[in-house]
């Protein structure tokens, strides 16, 4: 064998390697995935409850028309193809054939129209806003759905993930009180897994849906969601292999590092692109001194956000530069940057007249610590120390979930921390925090800080109905510049929740919605 022949033989062998690997680790049927769900969801029907645990678990049971990749581009869900009319008003979806519900009845375009236009508009706040833009929805044949919009809505194609538009069976819900339907306990969807057993306080047991429409899927036989309320116990369960997957806040940020060192586990921060959790220090813009832009700018300067990411979130976060996450569309990285500078913060506070008294104290502000885990408490301590450096006494106030929701929703707070998902498009997940039309007392996750700027309202409104992506980018760049100058809230971090899983399981993260995915393609090697 000469050198040339040897090289050719090696190349041929190299070409064969990927093929042989693919075969060797090809999708195999069978296996059980044990994972965690916390807190225990109140019910599993994602059309009626959109808490994160409900969506994680319900995502295996209920599907929608589309999925979204890590690049946020739509992928086939129950719709195998789709078309948009040139005027951006008509969306036509073609469904996969042979989709059945878990009770064996076929899923057709009638179910889609019924779910989107009847059920979700009644029970799902986000979907209600999205489908309010629809003038008519039709089912011309069992596999075709046509939505006609009142006016163009650029992110309409982004409204069909399993969390935003889950499809429920018309034959079960039509003519009933949806929320009180006795079959809610059965959770009948079209997903690759169906509910076998739910032992309250203990576990939820899902088994494969044999009539699933995608060939050979699902590969796993079953998924067991164990309800483990204590975070230390959850970490131990992952460590000793009792569970093979943890997601979202199952594991505290300070535990993540040690799992990176555990050889059988994979730790990734992928799979959250659609949600892009964005965190900020929320300041009630109605109250002095937070009603002064210079104060809010000073807050941006006085928090060492790099240190916050490293010390409180142990590197599982990236510094946020403005209202739009760098992980989603239309992010503008060229906006004004607020570097960590105590001097600049002090100068701004002096300029607005908030000068220190004889004891060096400028102000006292009550900070409500969100009751969502230890990281929030640690962040509160971090902020307290940061504010103390410029003479502001941040008084930490503890509360529980109900107290926090009531105080923030009713604007009865001075400062707190907040976090929202960006949902793949600023028109879906960002504008709601800043537009004046969303200042609604009593409504959590609206524009609770009370910021109002007619120009920002105009730009967000125009961008939502503009179909040209370049034009949208331009509009969102403008709005980001204004918001970063005005600082309605002090953006802190883009959180990077981990997904930690046993390496024996493949395809755990295959889209931008990560662990909310159906898991039909997950297999055990």
């Amino acid at each position, binding site marked *: 064998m000469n050198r040339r022949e040897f090289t050719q033989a090696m190349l041929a062998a190299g070409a064969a390697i990927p093929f042989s690997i693919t075969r060797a680790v090809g999708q195999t049927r069978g296996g059980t995935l044990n994972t965690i769900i916390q807190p225990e969801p109140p019910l599993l029907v994602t059309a009626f409850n959109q808490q994160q645990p409900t969506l994680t678990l319900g995502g295996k049971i209920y599907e929608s028309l589309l999925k979204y990749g890590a690049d946020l581009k739509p992928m086939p869900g129950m719709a195998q193809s789709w078309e948009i009319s040139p005027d951006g008003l008509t969306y036509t979806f073609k469904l996969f054939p042979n989709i059945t519900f878990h009770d064996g009845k076929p899923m057709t375009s009638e179910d889609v129209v019924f779910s989107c236009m009847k059920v979700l508009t009644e029970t799902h*706040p986000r979907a209600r806003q999205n489908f309010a833009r629809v003038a008519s929805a039709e089912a011309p044949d069992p596999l075709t759905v046509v939505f006609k919009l009142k006016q163009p809505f650029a992110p309409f194609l982004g409204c069909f993930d399993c969390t935003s538009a889950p499809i429920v069976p018309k034959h079960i819900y039509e003519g009933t009180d949806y*929320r009180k339907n006795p079959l809610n306990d059965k959770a009948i969807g079209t997903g690759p897994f169906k509910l076998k057993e739910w032992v309250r*306080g203990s576990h939820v*047991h899902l088994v494969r849906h044999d009539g699933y429409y995608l060939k050979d899927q699902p590969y796993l036989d079953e998924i*067991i969601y164990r309800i483990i*309320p204590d975070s230390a116990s959850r970490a131990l369960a992952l460590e000793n292999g*009792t569970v093979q997957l943890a997601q979202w806040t199952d594991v505290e940020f300070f535990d993540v590092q040690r799992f990176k060192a555990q050889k059988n586990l994979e730790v990734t921060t992928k799979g959250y692109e659609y949600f892009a959790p964005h965190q900020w220090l929320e300041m009630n813009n109605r109250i002095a001194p937070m009603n002064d832009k210079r104060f809010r700018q000073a807050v941006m300067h006085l928090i060492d956000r790099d240190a916050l990411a490293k010390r409180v979130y142990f590197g599982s976060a990236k510094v946020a530069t403005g209202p739009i996450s760098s992980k989603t569309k239309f992010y503008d990285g060229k906006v004004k940057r607020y570097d960590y500078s105590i001097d600049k913060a002090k100068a701004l506070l002096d300029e607005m007249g908030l000068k220190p008294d004889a004891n060096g104290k400028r102000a006292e502000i009550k900070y409500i610590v969100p009751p969502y885990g230890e990281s929030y408490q640690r962040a509160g301590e971090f902020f307290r120390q940061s504010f103390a450096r410029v003479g502001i006494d941040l008084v930490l106030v503890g509360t529980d*979930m109900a107290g926090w929701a009531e105080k923030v929703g009713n604007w009865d707070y001075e400062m707190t921390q907040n976090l929202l998902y960006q949902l793949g498009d600023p028109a879906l997940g960002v504008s709601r925090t800043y537009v004046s039309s969303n200042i609604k007392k009593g*409504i959590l996750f609206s524009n609770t800080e009370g910021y109002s700027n007619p120009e920002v309202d105009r730009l967000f409104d125009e961008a939502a109905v503009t179909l040209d992506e370049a034009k949208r980018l331009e509009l969102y760049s403008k709005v980001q510049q204004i918001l970063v100058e005005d600082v309605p809230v002090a953006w802190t971090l883009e959180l990077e929740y981990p997904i930690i899983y046993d390496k024996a399981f493949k395809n755990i993260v295959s889209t931008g919605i990560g662990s909310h995915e159906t898991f039909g393609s997950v297999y055990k090697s």
Partner: protein
Amino acid sequence: MIRLGSAATIGLMALSRIAQLVAVILVIATFNFVLVQAAPGDPAQVMAGQSGASDPKLLEDLRREYGLDKPYAVQLASYLGRVVRLDLGYSYRQRRPVVDLILERLPATLLLTVTAFCLALLIGTTLGALAGLAAGSVLDTVFTVLSLVLYATPVFWLGLMLVLVFSVTLGWLPPFGYETINVKLAPLEHALDIAKHMIMPVTSLAAIYLAIYARLMRSSIIEVAQQDFIKTARAKGLSGPSIVVGHMLRNALVPVVTVAGMQAGALVGGAVVIETVFAWPGLGRLTFDALLQRDYPVLLGIFLILSIVVIVLNLLTDLIYRLIDPRMTTGAA
């Protein structure tokens, strides 16, 4: 005659207590209602807020659905009316009858707490009595230090340490849960499986109570041992064991029974920490979750049941007093 008289007195007392029970329950139900409503937080807002999105229609729907839009007085009257009809209402969050939720969780909690309580009482009083009888000895010192350590150890920490040693390191015991999920076992195997799951939570829960009973029994025995009637018994020439069993233990048990009676009620609802650490599907966790969610019907239902349990246990404690110490029957005590 004396015995019949005692029995009649006990019977009358029991009847009188039962009559009081109904009135007390209604007062407690009212008090619970006011207390729960006084806590800040709107259940509709919690439910809507947790969805990550909310709007006025959802809040309005939820408030109307659960009658939260009605005045407090109307809600209270409606609640008391249901209590009289033995209807505990419907869970806001879980959308199921409260009775079902409580009955579903009660067996697991009772299994955990009754086992822990009995073990703690039995072992604690035995160790306490031995230490008291041998006061000042090495045995006494060892028991005293041991009970002090157990008393000072936080329950959750002990639980986690047990998991770390016996589950993670040694792999002997399941780290959490009530039973092995997803396996079919014969009845005996199933019972053994549950027993295996119980070892660590029961040990963790029993530890602190064991320490309390041991310390209480020890000091009680030492105190009783110095009483005149013990000296009299000794002077009469009674043997050591008959003095201990017949005179000292019965008298020394009175304060232990008092404390145990008070704690038994708290145990039913107070296992929340252990139930959380060991993912035990019991009533404590249901209470905690309901509190966080402001799930008023569930909270009120649990409070009411616990109140009844406490009242019944107090009644039993009174009866046990009289069995231990007949002087109490005649009111001499």
